[in-house]
């Protein structure tokens, strides 16, 4: 395509300057490669993609050798040699050998049915396969791979796209847009597998499947390799021209031999190789000028832009959209329209953009990036596009406005958005108190207050002044409670989905919101939500506590603080075997081994697991410890068996994730040796049964617990404790300890929900028990068995001598 353009230019300017001979390795005339995808999908016919037919070559007296690859350039004699003994002399030579697809060097890559996607022959082979075969696997989730997948799907094949990295098109898109793209691709009926590294192509003569490094595999009748392209430089290289990634050219498209020029995908200018049409055509224009002795025309480094040609999917990216210290981003999300727009700004200039769902302004943004336009005057509203004259502020009520009328706003009292709207309109309510009185919405725990206020704002307009909500973090205007309610009201199941639907202002969140969102999602959808390790703090990712020197501490669980000779012996052996420098007894009646190397953790856990010691979760926002005194079995003052209750409690509660850490204790009598009355939840045994306390603290704040209620027996104690912890799990803000939650919600309201309302208590208990079915697992044992192995081994040990 690039050489055709150069010839056109040459002809326009001075048709008699050169006699032209063309060698084409493909057995055909010049055609528009960009249109191969529509040909594959059946939306375009090949004939329509032809740029120049035979008559064009004939008319201009160009000699065209079709299907005639050049084999050698003899620079001394200035002769080009091709197959079948054909040779032609030259004064000037233009190389446009393009690029060739990269074929993964895995076993089986040469089997029948393994295709690449580069030229018309590839398309023909794919079309033939689509007639008789059923399953296609496309390796590579980049531009070409996705276009090939969509085309084959359109032809009726079952298609799976396999991508090495976690998000599709990661070279052209950010994570958010990649996630939206994946959903759109999946909605075309294409299966997407990310994070899969291909190990081998299986089968006999013909391909039968693809095997991955993680041991999994899929069936395939054909495999398309679309993992990338490589400039074809061997001809130039053999001729002794300077090559790097491509054939190195100057700004006039001249190679290291001034009589030889190179353009197109094989040419490398200023360290860059280009694959998109606009810069390639510009190269052609420059080469034509150079051939005609015009030195003024020259090539300049280009901003690259990418666009996917799949019907129904609009996406575009241009420029440099990496985050940077001196960079700011403007993000606009419209979840109803499936739109995500991101502008990256450096100083007063737009330097990059990613657009998904609405690419109508792409030309405008591209021009501003290219021209380095001063955007200070339009910065506030440029995200809305060129047609937007006035700046409009982000609408804070958008999230609530988009909820359907039957969505529950108030979970406690089951009040829908429609009911609240109706009450506001029919009863002329103008205050939060009015809504509470009429509908009960936000009248119990109050976590939906922010949403009710936004509804008031939506109905009454600016005349309503809502109380200020403290945003969860800088990435959103929504508060913790708003986010939690919206997760269930809108059935949000993943972090990227949440960021899109709730219009997050940053592209990937921050270290503050990601762990919070991860907790909210796993608490909302036990068993369904897939935990996002990358959104967890290192301690919870590695299941040990990071210390200031980068080593870790290991604290095994000792149920109720009770241990045995077998456990202590195993601990002693581990300490010796792994040279653990410090062993300490903690305030929660546990043994802490400090200074363990990260790579030793799985082996340490394996030894501890052997005697039944499991993770103590001393590293997590989770159920930590249940401390006990010896109780009436040994103590002459003891009123109940506090040790036994402590052990039962811990065995039921452990493994649960909570908004912040939960420390507990059971004291056998009001002398309170286990210090139960300064714990998050504490039980004090009395003659008549058990007093359940909660909301104590003994950290920066020191607080005595409040009495929640009284129960007569062990079973009831466990039910009430689990119920109050579940209520906290459902209402607490991330990192908010129980005493702060109780202060925010009100102890009375919590007592209503957990003590007075027996049915509600049983329901809370049942939800906690359900959640435990999924979360009560020993994370250490999983990792001993190899889960998350990559977390514990360095990627590669570098040997210092190699460097010297």
């Amino acid at each position, binding site marked *: 395509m690039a050489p055709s353009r150069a010839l056109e230019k040459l002809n326009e300017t001075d048709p008699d300057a050169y006699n032209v001979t063309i060698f084409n390795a493909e057995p055909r005339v010049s055609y528009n490669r960009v249109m191969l995808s529509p040909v594959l999908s059946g939306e375009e016919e090949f004939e329509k993609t032809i740029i120049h037919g035979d008559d064009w070559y004939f008319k201009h007296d160009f000699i065209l050798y079709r299907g005639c690859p050049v084999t050698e350039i003899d620079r001394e004699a200035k002769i080009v040699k091709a197959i079948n003994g054909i040779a032609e002399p030259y004064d000037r030579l233009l190389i446009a050998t393009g690029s060739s697809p*990269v074929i*993964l*060097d895995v076993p089986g890559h040469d089997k029948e049915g393994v295709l690449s996607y580069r030229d018309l022959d590839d398309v023909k082979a794919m079309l033939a396969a689509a007639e008789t075969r059923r399953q296609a696997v496309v390796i590579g989730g980049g531009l070409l791979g996705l276009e090939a997948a969509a085309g084959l799907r359109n032809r009726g094949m079952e298609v799976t796209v396999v991508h*090495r990295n976690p998000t599709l098109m990661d070279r052209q898109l*950010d*994570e958010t847009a990649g996630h939206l793209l994946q959903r759109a691709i999946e909605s075309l009926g294409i299966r997407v597998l990310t994070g899969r*590294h291909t190990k081998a192509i299986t089968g006999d003569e013909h391909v039968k499947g693809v095997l991955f490094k993680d041991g999994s595999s899929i069936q395939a009748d054909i495999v398309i390799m679309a*993992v*990338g392209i*490589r400039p074809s430089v061997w001809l130039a290289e053999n001729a002794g021209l300077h090559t790097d990634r491509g054939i190195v050219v100057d700004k006039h498209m001249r190679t290291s031999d001034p009589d030889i020029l190179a353009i197109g995908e094989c040419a490398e200018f200023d360290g860059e190789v280009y694959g998109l049409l606009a810069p390639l055509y510009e190269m052609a224009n420059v080469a034509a000028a150079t051939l005609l002795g015009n030195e003024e025309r020259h090539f300049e480094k280009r901003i690259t832009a990418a666009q996917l040609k799949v019907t129904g999917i609009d996406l575009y990216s241009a420029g440099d959209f*990496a*985050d*940077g*210290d001196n960079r700011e981003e403007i993000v606009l999300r419209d979840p109803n329209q499936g739109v995500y727009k991101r502008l990256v700004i450096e100083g007063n200039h737009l330097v990059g953009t990613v657009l998904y769902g609405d690419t109508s302004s792409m030309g405008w943004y591209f021009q501003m990036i290219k021209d380095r336009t001063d955007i200070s005057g339009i910065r506030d509203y440029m995200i809305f596009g060129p047609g937007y004259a006035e700046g409009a502020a982000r609408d804070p009520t958008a999230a609530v406005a988009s909820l359907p009328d039957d969505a529950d706003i108030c979970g406690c009292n089951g009040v829908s958005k429609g009911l609240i709207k109706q009450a506001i309109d029919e009863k002329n309510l103008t205050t939060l108190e009015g809504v509470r009185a009429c509908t009960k919405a936000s009248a119990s725990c109050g976590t939906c207050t922010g949403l009710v206020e936004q509804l008031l704002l939506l109905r009454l307009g600016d005349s309503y002044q809502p109380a200020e909500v403290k945003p969860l973090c800088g990435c959103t205007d929504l508060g913790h409670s708003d986010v939690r309610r919206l997760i269930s009201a809108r059935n949000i199941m993943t972090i990227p989905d949440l960021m899109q639907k709730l219009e997050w202002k*940053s*592209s*990937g*969140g*921050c*270290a503050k919101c*990601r*762990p919070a969102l991860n907790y909210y999602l796993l608490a909302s959808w036990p068993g369904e939500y897939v935990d996002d390790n*990358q*959104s*967890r*703090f*290192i*301690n919870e*990712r*590695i299941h040990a506590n*990071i210390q*200031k020197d*980068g080593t870790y501490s290991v604290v095994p669980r000792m149920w109720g603080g009770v241990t045995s000779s077998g456990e202590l012996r195993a601990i002693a052996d581990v300490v010796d075997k792994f040279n653990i420098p410090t062993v300490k007894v903690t305030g929660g009646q546990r043994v802490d081994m400090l200074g363990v190397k990260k790579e030793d953790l799985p082996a340490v856990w394996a030894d501890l697991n052997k005697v039944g010691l499991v993770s103590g979760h001393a590293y997590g926002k989770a159920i930590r410890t249940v401390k006990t005194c010896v109780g009436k079995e040994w103590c002459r003052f003891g009123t109940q068996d506090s040790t036994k209750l402590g052990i039962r409690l811990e065995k039921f509660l452990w493994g649960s994730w909570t908004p912040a850490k939960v420390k507990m204790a059971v004291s056998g009598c009001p002398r309170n040796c286990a210090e139960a009355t300064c714990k998050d939840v504490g039980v004090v045994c009395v003659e008549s049964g058990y007093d359940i306390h909660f909301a104590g603290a003994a950290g920066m704040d020191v607080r005595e617990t409040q009495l929640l209620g009284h129960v007569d027996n062990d079973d009831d104690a466990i039910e009430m404790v689990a119920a109050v912890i579940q209520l906290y799990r459902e209402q607490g803000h991330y990192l908010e300890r129980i005493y702060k939650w109780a202060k925010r919600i009100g102890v009375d309201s919590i007592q209503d929900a957990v003590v007075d309302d027996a049915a509600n208590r049983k329901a809370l208990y049942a939800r906690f028990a359900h959640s435990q079915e999924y979360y009560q697992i020993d994370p250490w044992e999983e990792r001993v068995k190899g889960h998350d192995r990559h977390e514990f081994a360095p*990627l590669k040990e*570098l040997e*210092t001598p*190699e*460097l*010297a």
Partner: protein
Amino acid sequence: MGPISQGIVHGDKVTCPLHNLVINLTDGTASDDGCTPVCTISVQVGEGGEVLLNTEDIRAMQESGTG
């Protein structure tokens, strides 16, 4: 100094697990004013997905004792 390799990655940034300092992954600069940037090693990703480190950078880092 903290082990930033253990931090939470968000977008092109990573947050240090010990001090919550936000470091830019593309150039090693810190988001808080007055904090020294971390050492960077230039890398290239090969066609097979292998990561190539620039040994010059590693040597420079070792010599300056900041590694």
